[in-house]
């Protein structure tokens, strides 16, 4: 594989900034298989870096859109996981007398494990997440969440609620489905718009950075 071809494997913004310099270096370097492997690894790292830490590199707008879609899918998936996980536990606690009406401790326990309590916890986690994990590994986290959620979505049509240990919860769950949907979509809208605003900022930063780049025309071309 020729040096120009290998450099074309890098993300376009990276190539526009460093491609000409890298090519000049490659012209003075013997093209061994080790050098080719190093360039392939480098290109892979830059693509991963763009997705995982878009704040550190120039991130193409399409990737921001992908991040947004994955975030929304993750929000839906995680809320469903929490609902499916929390409801049987709430039923079990209730059946075994842990959740007693008028008992503050029981009410608190019920709130913590109920579906709506879980969603509230989820919203809290999201707000915390936006503080401590802005831009760092966010995409990876949401891919993981979306995967777990996908498993939950697959299991749900298999009548997960009909399993023996979930006996008795069906009617209550069906009654609360509408509330859960509304709450879920409300959370998605609020949190999704927060994410969209942040992605819009990143996209603008990317465009500004592109405009600011005054690199001489590259022999590598500027198209992906």
């Amino acid at each position: 594989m020729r040096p120009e071809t290998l450099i074309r494997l890098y993300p376009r913004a990276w190539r526009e900034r460093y491609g000409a310099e890298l090519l000049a270096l490659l012209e003075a370097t013997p093209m061994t298989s080790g050098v080719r492997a190093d360039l392939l690894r480098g290109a892979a790292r830059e693509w991963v870096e763009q997705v995982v830490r878009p704040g550190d590199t120039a991130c193409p707008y399409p990737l921001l859109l992908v991040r947004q879609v994955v975030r929304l899918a993750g929000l839906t998936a995680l809320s469903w996981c929490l609902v499916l996980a929390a409801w049987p536990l709430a039923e079990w606690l209730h059946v075994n007398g842990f959740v007693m009406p008028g008992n503050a401790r029981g009410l608190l326990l019920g709130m913590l494990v109920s579906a709506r309590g879980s969603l509230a916890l989820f919203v809290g986690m999201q707000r915390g997440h936006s503080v401590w994990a802005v831009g760092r590994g966010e995409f990876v986290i949401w891919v993981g969440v979306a995967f777990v959620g996908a498993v939950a979505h697959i299991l749900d049509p298999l009548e997960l609620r009909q399993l023996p240990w979930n006996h008795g919860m069906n009617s209550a769950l069906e009654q609360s489905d509408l509330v859960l949907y509304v709450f879920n979509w409300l959370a998605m809208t609020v949190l999704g718009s927060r994410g969209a605003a942040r992605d819009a900022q990143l996209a603008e930063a990317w465009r500004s950075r592109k405009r600011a780049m005054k690199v001489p025309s590259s022999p590598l071309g500027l198209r992906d």
Partner: protein
Amino acid sequence: MKKTSDSLADLGRFSEPALLILISLADGPKHGYAMTQDIAMVSGQKLGPGTLYGAIARLEARKWIEPLPAEDRRRPYKLTGAGQRVLRHRLEGLRAVTRVGASRLSEG
């Protein structure tokens, strides 16, 4: 607000190449080819072009090095004040580790 890293260790797999680049630029600006030659002479390590420019991109993003006007297609880089501080801090850390290691070896 995004936290800005001030440690070479945060560069992960690029921390060692980044240290070698900072050392190479400590005695003056160099372009990519001159850096690889200097690093090979100083440390005996031959940095691959992809590794070199991966580390350069990260060092530049942290403003530890900065590009100078290109000469032909070769663009020299120079160490910034922040880069000098990071390098000095890292070298002090390595010196302490080296001292402990050497003293333990002499005790054994």
